């Protein structure tokens, strides 16, 4: 490399739309978002198929919770970076990319479930789905920040059992009524919604600022 | 002869990674040079019995690796260090080397001593109980060498063994190579030409899957006389042979 080939980048340089889209695409590809989307769609379809059977009492609410947990785990895994430190030592776009991909994936999961359960008898309705998915994704993101992208699934999976048992106690008292176990609360319960939203916000903040922890 | 391969080819889809290589070599240190994508790693992987040749014949340690029982015997006497070595971050240095010693069917009673010796030889005795995740890149490379030599192999295959080692460690490693080469066949694939010059008694140069030179380092140096490209005599010989092969 000679002096003539050194390029000076102006301080106020902004990527154009084309390069911005390309950056987003490369970022999503590096996070294996396609595989995560396939997982999300598969979970939604599984729910649709499972709703062909009749589910009663707490089973009708545990079924979507299990599949929502699978989605959240897949979304959490996409926060893991394959590049490590070189990626962190770059400009300002990385936090925005993390924020955008986490929110987009969460919205996609909610939409996938909503579309897949149109016309089906989904216990709890879409309100339940939104609250559960948002809260579980928050847990997955927090796990990613603490344990790394590869282990982000642990939080949603453990919480899935906690929530499933909480739903069971609604029919076999004493019921667990803490809003922090939001799957066991009614779909439009404000306290539970706030708890789920708080966890989601915390997870988003952690992943946006720090990203997933890098494992050895 | 510990390595006898005749007209060995390896194809990956439409790519011919190794194209009709023939080689015979016995005890000593054998250097394998070549540009990126020349087929060195593929050749080493075939010698390590990880993959089988598409065509051609191979005899390692006087055995045909195509037969299962013979292949097992070869692997008991084999040491292999791949170009990119994975590791279990939670293992300690000693545990990682012990793991491979056990997998190589070493008599269990000999394993502790062999592990300690191997770790000592790569100068990591002070780090024997350190977790692998705490080691630097160079130290990890040395751990990889330790697992390759723990069973005192008769056939030792090293792919870029000195990557990440500091100059002092490279000097020590060349000493180790000469020591090992006294009893075993050591095949070293490297880009570092000076390692070849100092440690190897024989050298081969590959390009585009073919063997374009096989001789001593001195003969390779002689090929470079009058050639302009290269900062050292062996490098000039290397460039000259490649240029001739490609013209």
């Amino acid at each position, binding site marked *: 490399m000679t002096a003539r080939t050194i390029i000076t980048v102006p301080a106020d340089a902004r990527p154009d739309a084309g390069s911005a889209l390309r950056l987003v695409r490369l970022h999503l590809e590096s996070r294996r978002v396609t595989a995560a989307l396939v997982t999300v769609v598969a979970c939604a379809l599984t729910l649709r198929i499972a709703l062909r059977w009749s589910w009663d009492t707490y089973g009708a609410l545990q079924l979507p919770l299990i599949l929502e947990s699978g989605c959240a785990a897949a979304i959490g895994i996409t926060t893991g970076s394959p590049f490590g430190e070189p990626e962190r030592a770059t400009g300002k776009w990385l936090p925005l990319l993390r924020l955008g991909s986490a929110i987009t994936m969460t919205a996609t999961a909610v939409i996938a479930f909503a579309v897949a359960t149109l016309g089906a008898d989904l216990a709890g309705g879409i309100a339940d789905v939104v609250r559960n998915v948002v809260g579980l994704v928050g847990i997955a993101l927090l796990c990613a920040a603490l344990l790394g992208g590869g282990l982000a699934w642990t939080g949603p999976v453990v919480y899935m059992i906690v929530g499933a048992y909480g739903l069971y106690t609604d029919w076999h008292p004493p019921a667990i009524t803490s809003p922090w176990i939001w799957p066991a609360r009614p779909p439009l319960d404000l306290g539970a919604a706030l708890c789920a939203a708080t966890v989601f916000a915390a997870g988003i903040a952690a992943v946006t600022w720090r990203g997933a922890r890098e494992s050895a | 002869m510990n390595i006898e391969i005749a007209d060995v080819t390896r194809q990956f889809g439409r790519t011919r990674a190794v194209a009709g290589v023939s080689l015979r070599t016995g005890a000593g240190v054998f250097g394998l040079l070549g540009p990126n994508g020349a087929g060195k790693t593929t050749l080493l992987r075939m010698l390590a019995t990880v993959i089988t040749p598409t065509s051609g014949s191979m005899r390692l340690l006087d055995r045909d690796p195509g037969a299962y029982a013979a292949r097992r015997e070869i692997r008991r006497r084999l040491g292999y260090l791949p170009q990119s070595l994975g590791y279990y971050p939670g293992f300690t240095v000693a545990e990682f080397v012990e793991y*491979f010693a056990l997998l190589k069917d070493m008599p269990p009673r000999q394993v502790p001593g062999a592990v300690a010796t191997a770790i000592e030889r790569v100068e990591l005795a002070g780090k024997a109980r350190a977790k692998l995740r705490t080691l630097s890149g160079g130290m990890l490379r040395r751990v990889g060498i330790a697992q390759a030599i723990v069973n005192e192999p008769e056939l030792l295959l090293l792919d870029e063994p000195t990557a990440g080692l500091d100059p002092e460690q490279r000097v020590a490693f060349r000493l180790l190579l000469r020591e090992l080469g006294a009893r075993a066949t050591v095949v070293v694939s490297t880009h570092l030409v000076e390692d070849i010059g100092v440690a190897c008694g024989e050298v081969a140069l590959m390009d585009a899957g073919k063997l374009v030179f096989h001789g001593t380092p001195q003969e390779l140096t002689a090929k470079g006389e009058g050639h302009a490209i290269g900062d050292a005599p062996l490098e000039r010989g290397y460039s000259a042979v490649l240029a001739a092969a490609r013209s």
Partner: protein
Amino acid sequence: MTAGAGQVVGQADGEWRAWRQRLVAGVRLLRLELRRSAMVWMLPVTGALFWYNAFRESMAEPAMWNLRAMTMQHGVLLDFAPPVVGAAAWMGSRDGRRQLTDLIGTVPRPRWTAQLATWAAVTCWALVAYCCCVGVLYGLTARQASWGGPLWWPAVVGAAGIPALAAVGFAAGAWFPSRFTVPIVTVGAFFALGFSSQPRAPQWRVSPTVSGAPSIGPDAGIGTFYHYLPDLSIAQVICVVGVAVAALGALGLLDRASGSWLRPIASSMTAVGLAAVVLAAGLAGTARLDPHGMLVIPALHDAANDRPIGYTPICAHAVIPICLNPAYAAYLPECKRALAPVLAEVAGLPGLPVRMSQGAPVYFGPLNSGFAPSGAGVVIADGSSDGSRQTTLVLPDQLPGEPSGADITVNQFIGQIRLPVAADLIKIMVGVAPGAVRVGAVPGAGRISAASGGGSPAQRAVAAALAIDAGATGAPRANTAVGLAADRFAALPAAVRHAWLATHLTALRAGRITLAQLP
């Protein structure tokens, strides 16, 4: 010794030494893997999930071995599935994630045997956790239960399920070492186990989370009077062992670097494992409900298990001894409270049974839909060998303190015993039941009417009056001659009523007393 024989002996000795070396090396590999297994990190999570779910659910049951063990079986594998499957999948994908597949492929020991050591390490830790968790539950139950011993089959089924969970997770991780494999297979295993715990077809009873006839579930009468039948448990163990064998066989199919000898072995293991699963499901599909509430699988059934369990009853005295199975010791005071007023009405009268002993409930009905134990609290008259009368008391199906959708209170429990016992005891004494006994929708709120129930008017009037005085709730005061006579008789002082019965009961039972002759 000839040279040839010496050669053979030397060869055999050498082979034995080689085998021993391999065994020792295998043990050392296992020791290494035990130290570094990811399952160690999952132990606290496993313990917490077990406490949160299966432990609390089981301990909420009354302190009876059958209730707690069967409840535990339903929940324990659901708690263990995510951490065990997750850790196993993580370890199975280790070589792929750490790019060690090639290097492992260069060693003489087949990759499969190295993987078996890794799987075994996960399984060992998971089993240690399982034994500790179940041990705590069983230990506490042993301290609290009034009788009986541990029900081992539910624990055995759970223990047999652990290696299967680990094998499925490990094989999935080894086959697909992607970062998505672990959560997908973990959630999938939990979903499959949860789905199978509500059997929709008879074959689904083979799920290790099913602890008995699905429509009955854990019930106090099961395994208390008659031995707990292991038929379904055996089928479940066959199933989970089959799953483990098939998964480990599939693991062997992945090892292409080892010799051709491995593929037939691995394929056979997979086939045998799958066949075992199909066989077990088929066996479970042939199960039928026996009168003791347990599932009988004809092909696995041992008639020797059908014998009753011997026990020394515990008794309380209320006019006559009321004796229960010692497993129900906690409920003896309530039984006495329920029956004392009834027995006081008929104490000393001719024909009174000399003893009331608890009998086993009888279960009948379709297997997967509503079942009915024999009427709770029904007194079944029975003659004994010495000619004296003994009656068999069957307690209600629902015990106070049993967590369920309809929590029964102590008073409701007492009412559920008193009402039908009163009706049948009165029938024995007077010769006719006190009208139609209907146990209401709310337990204990039964009503006895003086309506037609056979017998003479005087018998019906006396029967109704005795029922009212025994504390049966809500006898309607009909404006009929029988109803008015019943009211008058019930209003008499107890001593007067008792004295009249002592004199006239035999004649009343024979139908020779008229309404006008009643005081």
